[in-house]
């Protein structure tokens, strides 16, 4: 019953044509890619669709599911040239560009994927704009003596259109999400 309700919810929104969830036209965030290249978000991505997932690299389970879903979306869309994929890290203190490069490398991702981060102020502002929340859930000390913290976080993949408007948003780690987003793309492009 719960699954039915969730599916109905998704289907309802999937049927809405280019509903604008957030308009980022007036926004501007200076960020860095995994290669330490400066980018201005969202300006540098205008003219393309952007599929964006929210992750942190010390997350071993949910965030890889989000990343894997983004890979599935790309594969099922047929790797279109007008779609770029962004993994946004909400853990800027630990997820330096070099860490993001290692994360990208582990998933064997090509140039259509970038992972981005920034200084803590900018990352926090972007998270507020996109209603992404985090909260330290617990800390642990490893056998090697390293203290680690883990985060509760929003579970989200969104799609921004070429005019920098967020038009699609789903729970990022859910297994049905790639199919839903691909169906949405097909409707949008009709």
């Amino acid at each position, binding site marked *: 019953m719960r699954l039915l309700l969730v599916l109905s919810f998704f289907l309802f929104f999937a049927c809405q044509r280019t509903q604008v969830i957030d308009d980022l036209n007036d926004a501007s965030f200076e960020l860095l890619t995994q290669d330490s290249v400066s980018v201005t978000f969202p300006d540098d991505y205008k003219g393309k669709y952007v599929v964006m997932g929210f992750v942190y690299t010390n997350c*071993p389970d*949910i965030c890889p599911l989000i990343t894997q879903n983004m890979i599935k979306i790309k594969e099922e869309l047929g790797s279109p040239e007008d779609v770029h994929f962004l993994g946004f890290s909400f853990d800027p203190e630990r997820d330096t560009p070099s860490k993001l490069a290692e994360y990208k490398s582990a998933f064997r991702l090509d140039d259509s994927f970038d992972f981005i981060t920034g200084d803590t102020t900018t990352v926090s502002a972007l998270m507020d704009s996109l209603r992404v929340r985090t*909260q330290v*859930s*617990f800390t642990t000390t490893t056998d090697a003596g390293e203290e680690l913290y883990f985060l509760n976080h*929003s579970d989200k993949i969104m799609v921004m259109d070429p005019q920098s408007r967020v038009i699609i948003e789903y729970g990022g780690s859910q297994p049905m999400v790639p199919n839903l987003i691909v169906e949405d793309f097909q409707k949008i492009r009709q």
Partner: protein
Amino acid sequence: MTRLASRSVLLLIALILACSPKQETPEKNTVNIGNGSLEISNGWARPAHARMMTAAYFTIRNNETFADTLLSVSYANADDTQIHESYEADGGMMGMRPVGAVPIPANSGVELKPGGIHVMIIRPEMNLSEGDSIVLELAFSSNELQLIRIPVKASN
């Protein structure tokens, strides 16, 4: 042989296996323990860069008429290995919390799977790439210690 000695031998074997070159892993990937009283199958681990974080998953079937418990999992070539559970936290967020041990009811099974209970491998010493395999040591309350070799792959 005492439990300590048994554990030391298993750890030594784990170290030798873990340091050995990549090996082909049987497709079925099923291990029987104690004449089939416990069955472990469908094991796999996600790829990860060295010194990062990853997760391993597998299914445990308990064919006995009494319950068992998975007490711990360890991977010799990492800083630490812990059993965790992903869950839906307050405010629609996703979270993760430690799980002390995993009960395995009699004549039943437990699936460690993405989005649920998983083994968190903290800071592996080497890159774990698709096509590699790793050896985990599983400790059960029934005094069974078991080594399993599981493939590294992007998804199951």
